[in-house]
């Protein structure tokens, strides 16, 4: 193949990077590359210029591509040659010194120059800056500034943007009294809001830099060198040196002369090609894409890649779609990150912020439709990586806002996936790592449920489900597929809970198999059965047709299955109270059936663990107490402290109330476990504040009702629902809350999740204030449920199904 010639005008960060990208795609086989650069150096890192100023780095240190790099890659570099003409007809460029080069493809990467705003007295003569006035853009600028500072006392930097602040800081290091003069109302107005700008200003002033905002410089005083500045408001400032860092202007004049479309810069299409000429590409600060001109490095990298993809034909469909600007930097020793908007701009925008001016700490996020549209972080930017990723990918944010700003250091704290090592375990129950979830997403599973099915992540205790969801979203980069079945009550029937209840009522479906027949084409999804059974029991109570195959094994044999296939036996023991006679019977039964473990449970009951299935009827009979329902998604038990009977602090009869609660609600099914407690005083010895429903005596016969507490896989203090003045009222409102939960929660959704989803205000309105006028119906429904319960251990003498308690059926095969 005959090589084409690629000519690159501009040897700055954009031009050189673009050429690197071409080489990385094997472009050396395709093109002879010729580069022109104004400066006599190779390509250097302009971001590091302030280090040249303050003396922490030398010229060699900031070189990215030293001159020998060009030779090694067979690139012909014309350093110090400014191209000022392009003949697009003849496909030739020409430098000011007359060097001509033919091109087949041309890349314009002329970048930009320091903008010197119009000020009287800035120039001495034709285009020559007055001695003491400096631009701040190149190595030569820096060398001149350092040199001049040796004999200067007061240096003023015009411009309080990123470059200006760095320059001002460097001037203090160079021994000058340093001032910053800024046109806008606060510093870094592109990156910060007023609050952030104010904090930064304080920090600068603490370093001895004087800040003057809302100042427009009208004149540079001094006859043959700088003596001071005069501002539009007639104030003035004496100085002997001025560094102008008031922005940049694209070097796009060459485009104008070549007849290309130039607005604010040379206009390009999505392939970074001039809209006028398919053989001319433009990248960097001299390019205008979709109306925007970028002055930061990150967009240059992206543009360079697209250019290289396209020109080498590695990927002709590669397109640049614009960049979302996010910066992370250290200004004046203050770490700072900024992305997107600095202020809310629409009514629906949600602003969350934290300000601690003394420490120079400021954090702000702007959220719109659960997406990050802007953020400012100062002083502590530990969350920057996570937020920048969320901003860049437009990925949905977790509900928990606080953890977006802080690493809270609690078990619940959100982990930033950027920082999480690949082998970090996300699901501890099933040992699923971040890498495993990533591999699964890469393999094409793009919804949370698909990843959960494939990896089993989140399918153990379930406490990591939210984290799994975030991990999937992170790996999908905003391209996560919403699985519609997450809104269904069970995945196999496309109805949410409300719709399903309506269908079940209308059609009078009273058994799980009839639901499958009517609503799921007769396909009986095994995993959906217990959820449907729970719903039908709640709806139909005593009219429910109890097909035992729809229940989890625990609900078929009324005990909790253990790892070896044996079961646990927990008799009812409300408030942890039993009689000595009952205690003896429990002990005798444990001896008689050789029970391997006797354990007091977290719910203040006695657990006989390791009982064989076929021994269950016998041991229940021997114990002679009702079932404790320690196995199901149901009301479990009510713990109690000792209350008023013996405790010298007791304010209310917690044991008595626990007994009443248990007698009323025992055996009702519910979407998740219901663990309750009563406490005789606010010391809360029975941990009532972390229960699904907790009732706390506060004296004068009054009780506080807490709901939505948790002390398991998740820890949460319950929310105060109401204060009542009798035990009967405590029973009533507890029951009404539980019924509302039973009718509205998703299957396996515990009260603490339900409560956070619905909100305590809404629940209080319905349950306490009867805002929806359904209180009486909730109470009646709960009454129907409690009336329909029975002691399942009576099945010891009247088995519900064939071989209900048989571990195995022996058969001779005859």
């Amino acid at each position, binding site marked *: 193949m005959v090589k084409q010639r690629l000519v690159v005008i501009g040897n700055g960060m954009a031009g050189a990077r673009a050429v690197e990208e071409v080489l990385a795609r094997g472009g050396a086989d395709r093109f002879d590359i010729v580069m022109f650069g104004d400066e006599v150096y190779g390509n250097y890192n302009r971001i590091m210029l302030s280090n040249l100023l303050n003396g922490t780095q030398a010229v060699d240190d900031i070189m990215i591509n030293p001159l020998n790099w060009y030779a090694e890659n067979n690139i012909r570099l014309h350093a110090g040659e400014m191209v000022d003409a392009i003949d697009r007809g003849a496909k030739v460029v020409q430098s000011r010194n007359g060097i001509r080069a033919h091109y087949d493809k041309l890349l314009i990467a002329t970048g930009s120059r320091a903008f010197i705003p119009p000020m009287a007295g800035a120039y001495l003569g034709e285009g020559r800056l007055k001695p003491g006035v400096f631009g701040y853009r190149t190595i030569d600028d820096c060398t001149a500034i350092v040199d001049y500072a040796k004999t200067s006392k007061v240096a003023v930097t015009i411009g309080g943007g990123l470059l200006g602040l760095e320059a001002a800081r460097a001037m203090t290091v160079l021994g000058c009294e340093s001032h910053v003069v800024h046109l806008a109302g606060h510093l870094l107005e592109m990156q910060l809001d007023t609050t952030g700008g104010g904090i930064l200003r304080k920090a600068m002033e603490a370093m001895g830099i004087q800040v003057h905002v809302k100042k427009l410089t009208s004149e540079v005083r001094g006859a043959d060198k700088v003596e001071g500045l005069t501002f539009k408001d007639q104030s003035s400032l004496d100085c002997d040196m001025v560094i102008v860092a008031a922005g940049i202007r694209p070097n796009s004049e060459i485009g104008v002369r070549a007849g290309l479309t130039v607005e604010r810069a040379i206009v390009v299409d999505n392939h970074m090609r001039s809209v006028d000429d398919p053989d001319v590409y433009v990248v960097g600060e001299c390019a205008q894409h979709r109306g925007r001109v970028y002055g930061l490095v990150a967009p240059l990298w992206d543009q360079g890649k697209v250019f290289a993809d396209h020109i080498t034909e590695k990927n002709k469909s590669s397109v640049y779609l614009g960049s979302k600007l996010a910066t992370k930097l250290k200004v004046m020793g203050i770490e700072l990150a900024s992305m997107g908007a600095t202020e809310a701009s629409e009514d629906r925008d949600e602003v969350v912020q934290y300000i601690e001016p003394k420490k120079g700490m400021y954090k702000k996020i702007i959220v719109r439709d659960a997406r990050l549209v802007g953020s400012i972080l100062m002083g502590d930017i530990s969350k920057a990586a996570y937020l920048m990723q969320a901003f860049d990918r437009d990925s949905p944010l977790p509900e928990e806002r606080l953890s977006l700003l802080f690493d809270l250091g609690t078990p619940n704290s959100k982990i930033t996936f950027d920082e999480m090592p690949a082998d970090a375990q996300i699901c501890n129950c099933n040992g699923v790592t971040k890498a495993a979830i990533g591999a699964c997403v890469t393999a094409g599973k793009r919804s949370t449920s698909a990843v959960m099915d494939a990896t089993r992540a989140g399918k153990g205790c379930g406490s990591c489900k939210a984290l799994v969801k975030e991990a999937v979203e992170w790996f999908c980069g905003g391209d996560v597929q919403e699985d519609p079945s997450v809104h269904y009550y069970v995945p196999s029937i496309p109805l949410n809970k409300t719709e399903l209840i309506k269908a079940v009522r209308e059609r009078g479906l009273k058994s799980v198999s009839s639901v499958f027949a009517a609503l799921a084409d007769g396909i*009986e999804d095994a995993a959906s059965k217990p959820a449907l059974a729970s719903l039908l029991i709640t709806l139909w109570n005593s009219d429910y047709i109890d097909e035992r195959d729809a229940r*989890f094994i625990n609900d*078929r044999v009324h005990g909790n299955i253990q790892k070896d296939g044996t079961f646990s036996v927990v008799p009812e023991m409300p408030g942890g109270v039993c009689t000595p006679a009952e205690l003896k019977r429990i002990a005798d039964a444990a001896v008689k059936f050789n029970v391997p473990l006797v354990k007091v449970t977290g719910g203040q009951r006695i657990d006989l663990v390791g009982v064989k299935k076929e021994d269950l009827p016998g041991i229940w009979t021997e114990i002679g107490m009702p079932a404790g329902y320690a196995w199901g998604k149901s009301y479990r038990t009510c713990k109690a402290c000792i209350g008023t009977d013996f405790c010298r602090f007791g304010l209310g009869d917690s044991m008595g109330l626990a007994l009443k609660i248990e007698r009323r609600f025992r055996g009702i099914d519910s979407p998740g476990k219901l663990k309750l407690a009563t406490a005789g005083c606010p010391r809360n010895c029975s941990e009532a504040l972390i229960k699904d429903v907790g009732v706390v005596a506060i004296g004068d016969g009054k009780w506080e009702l807490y709901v939505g507490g948790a002390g398991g896989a998740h820890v949460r203090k319950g929310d105060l629902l109401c204060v009542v003045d009798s035990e009967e009222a405590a029973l009533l409102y507890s029951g009404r809350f539980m019924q509302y939960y039973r009718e509205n929660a998703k299957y396996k959704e515990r009260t603490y999740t339900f409560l956070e989803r619905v909100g305590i205000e809404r629940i209080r309105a319905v349950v306490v204030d009867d805002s929806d006028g359904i209180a009486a119906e909730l109470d009646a429904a709960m009454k129907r449920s409690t009336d329909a319960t029975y002691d399942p251990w009576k099945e010891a003498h009247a088995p519900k199904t064939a071989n209900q308690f048989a571990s195995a*059926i022996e*058969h001779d095969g*005859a």
Partner: protein
Amino acid sequence: MLQKRLTNSLPPSNMMEPSMSATLSIGPIEQIPPGEGRNFVIAEQEIAVFRTHADEIFATQPYCPHRNGPLADGLVGDRRVVCPLHDRTFDLRNGQEIGGNCSSLKTFKVSLTEAKNIMIFL
């Protein structure tokens, strides 16, 4: 119906003495409630037998290859069984685990007589 108390610590079937191929009756379908499974001991071998609501019969090894969960105690539906311990789900027709996290179950051929007696092929 002869019932015998058994622990779950029976030796796995592959440690049994090899037996001749045989067709054995394990009695009427009513021994298993619709939609459930029960363990049977047949010729000194423990086997889980499942009955669907449509009266299809399937037979597999009794314990889950993952952590020895008792499969007859699992949830059955759509010709699958879900192990009660850790939700491993198996296709009852061929024993394969859905999702491929687990080795497959050994399955046994079964049939129903006209009188609805379960026949099993060992």
